[in-house]
Structures are given as structure tokens and as C-alpha cells.
């Protein structure tokens, strides 16, 4: 009867550790830090070899963006691939903070990577034959994978996003951009947006700017 034994595997290259420079923070303190501060904390924990201390900071970052990434992916991908693509985007974005590249704001970088991964997904499907059969190929008998995806055709979705981007880029007044950011793309009401933008902006102005923006967006879509 063979027995299991354990042999040491080559450890990663050891590096100098700044053990004295790292102070572990409780979850409550970490939860109120911004993304950049959390990344700095993670870098410090990793440099100090304190892998366990990285856990709460990673939990806060991943939890904070996970549902957002998954929801965005659901707009474009079949459900069976949503979490995989979202996970890869989250992992790549957070890991990028450790490879010396300057990626700017983590949130933007994460969404940029997700968009790329979605584009890669469709590109890969055009390059190689689909190997996973859809439920319909089972003559409706096999319901193992449930209903087929109902996501909009990627080309239409991409075109609509481009039109939206163009409509936004055409806004020349910085206050109008701010209005769209807060009211259309953001969570604020028209009243709160007017107060936030200031400079004489009224609730009626907010509705007007938003309507004009939406109308221009649809014109660009209709021009196709």
C-alpha cells in the first residue's frame, strides 16, 4: 500500500519584507477606504508577506464590484458565461495593480477590461466553432442548460453604446455633461442634480438637458 508523503515545493523568490511598515487594519476600517487606499493596503500586506491580512481588503473590493460587473456582463453575454467573464475582468484588474503598470482609477480599469473581455468573447466565437451545444440542439428534450440566452445581438448593443458615447462627447457645456453624469448616468433626482450642478441650473433645466441628450442619442441610432 502506497503512502502519501509531503515534499516541499520551491517557494516563490523571497524578497525583502517591510514587516515593520505594515499595520493590519480591521474590516470596519478597511470598508471605508477608497479603492486606491485599499490597493495600497494590499500592496503593503503582500510586501510584508501578510497574505491573511489581504483577505478582508480583497473581499471588500470584489464584493463591491462583483454585482456591477455581473450585471454589465448580463447585458451582453449568455448567462452561462457571465460569471466567468466578470471574474476574469475583476481578477485581471485587481492583479494589474501589482505588476507595476499604471492603470489609473481601478473602477474604470475594471470596466475597460470587462468590455475587452466581452469583445474577446465574441471575437473568439467567430474564430472557432461553437463547441458547447445550445439547448435547442437537443430538440427541446434536454433542459440541462435551461433557456437560451436572450441578450441583444452584440452588434446592436455595441452600436447603441457608440451612439451614446458620441452624444455625450458632443456636449460642449461642462455643466451639461455634469448634468448627464448625475441625472442620466447617476442616481440623483432632477432636483438634487440641479442643486449639485449649481450656477443657476434648475430642475426644469435638468429635464431639458436630459431630454435633448436622449433625443440626440436616438437620432444617432436612427441614422444607421
Amino acid at each position: 500500500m502506497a503512502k502519501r508523503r509531503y515534499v516541499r515545493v520551491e517557494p516563490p523568490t523571497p524578497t525583502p519584507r517591510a514587516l515593520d511598515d505594515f499595520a493590519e487594519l480591521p474590516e470596519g476600517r478597511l470598508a471605508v477606504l477608497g479603492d486606491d487606499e485599499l490597493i495600497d493596503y494590499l500592496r503593503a500586506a503582500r510586501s510584508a508577506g501578510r497574505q491573511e491580512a489581504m483577505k478582508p481588503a480583497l473581499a471588500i473590493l470584489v464584493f463591491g464590484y462583483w454585482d456591477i460587473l455581473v450585471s454589465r456582463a448580463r447585458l451582453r453575454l449568455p448567462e452561462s458565461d457571465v460569471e466567468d467573464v466578470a471574474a476574469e475582468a475583476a481578477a485581471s484588474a485587481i492583479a494589474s495593480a501589482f505588476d507595476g503598470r499604471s492603470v489609473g482609477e481601478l473602477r474604470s480599469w475594471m470596466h475597460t477590461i470587462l468590455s475587452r473581455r466581452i469583445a474577446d468573447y465574441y471575437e473568439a466565437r467567430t474564430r472557432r466553432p461553437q463547441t458547447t451545444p445550445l439547448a435547442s440542439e437537443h430538440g427541446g428534450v434536454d433542459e440541462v442548460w435551461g433557456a437560451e440566452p436572450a441578450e441583444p445581438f452584440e452588434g446592436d448593443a455595441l452600436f447603441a453604446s457608440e451612439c451614446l458615447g458620441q452624444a455625450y462627447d458632443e456636449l460642449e457645456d461642462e455643466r451639461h455633461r455634469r448634468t448627464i453624469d448625475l441625472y442620466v448616468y447617476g442616481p440623483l433626482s432632477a432636483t438634487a442634480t440641479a442643486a449639485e450642478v449649481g450656477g443657476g441650473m434648475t430642475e426644469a433645466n435638468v429635464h431639458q438637458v436630459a431630454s435633448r441628450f436622449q433625443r440626440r442619442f436616438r437620432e444617432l441610432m436612427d441614422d444607421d
Partner: protein
Amino acid sequence: MTDVERLLAEYKEAHRADGAPADPRPYLARASGPDRAALGALIDAYLARAPRRSFDAARFRDSAAAPMAESLQRALSGSGGLWPALLPRLRNQARLRRAELVSELAARLGAQSQTEKVAAYYHQMEQGLLPATGVSDTVLEALGRIIGYSREALRRAGELPAPGAGAGPEPGAVFARTRRADSEPAEPAPEAAERHWDAVDRLFRGG
């Protein structure tokens, strides 16, 4: 207010009420044609600007974010880049059990008689215990064909984050399991063992 604007407002309200973004598909299903594409673009832009969700430990524990964060922690602690976060997902996506993948990998590497050794190395790759730089292109090519991922992309994932940037193990170190007969001599030190590498060792550790 147009239907699209109304649906976007409903979507944002659902997000505000729950604290987490709602599944956008039921909202998209209530629109059709160009309206549907327009609504999708607006929700997409809204989500891309959404702030980080406040941390909720209980909801985190029950969410798919928990295993994701754990695999990322393993990745940042190990020497295999993002493989701990990526490989198990790709394997699941390919609907393969680990034993099935290993068997296929061993066959593609011409190492059917050393499936157990291939299994040990693959386990180390998934756990982030095997330095990515040592894993040959031959292995990555074979693995990529099985799990539907390119060799280049696997290589890139293995190199992220940069190995050695403080990735030293915590006390207790890292151990991999091997199976040995009772009568076999004790495992030699790594330096000595390197001289006795066989073809499989070289494939997974020789670069």
C-alpha cells in the same frame, strides 16, 4: 418621459432600494427593437459609473464574490499569477472534472504512464503553487486546447501579478502531495532533485 427613460428610472430605483444592481434582463425584456438596444446602452453606462457597493459581510459570504476573492487571494499569495482564479473556472466552463482534465492533459503530453505526476503538477497550477515561469509552452498549449483558452493568454495570466513582489510564503510554507512506496528513499533536496528531473518535471518546471 419615454418608455426607455421610464425603464431606466425603474432600474436605477431598484438599485437604490436594494443596494445591489438588479438583473437588467427583465427590464430589457420590456423593450423591443431599437428601444431595447438603447436601454441596454444606458444601463451599461449607468453601471460603469456606479460606485463600489458598501461591504456587507453576511451577503458577501453567501455570494459568488466569496470564492472569487478567495481565489484572488491565493493568486496574489502564490507564484502562478492568476491561474488559481482562472484555471478552476475554465475547467468548470469546459464541464470537466479535474481527473478528466488531467487524464486528457497527460495523454496530450505523451505522459499517460505518469498521470499522477501530471495531476500533482496541475493541482499546484490551480493552487498557485507552481512558478508560472517554469511551465513550458508545450503544457500551456495542451492545456489551452482542453479548456478552450489560448497558450498566450494562459501565459499572460500566469505572469500576473509579477512573481516575487513580496510573494513569499507565510510560516508553514507550501507543500505538495506525492505518492510514494514505503520502500522508497526520502525525497532529495530540490537542488539535488533537479538533476533527476524526468520529461514531465522538465515540462512543468523547466520553462
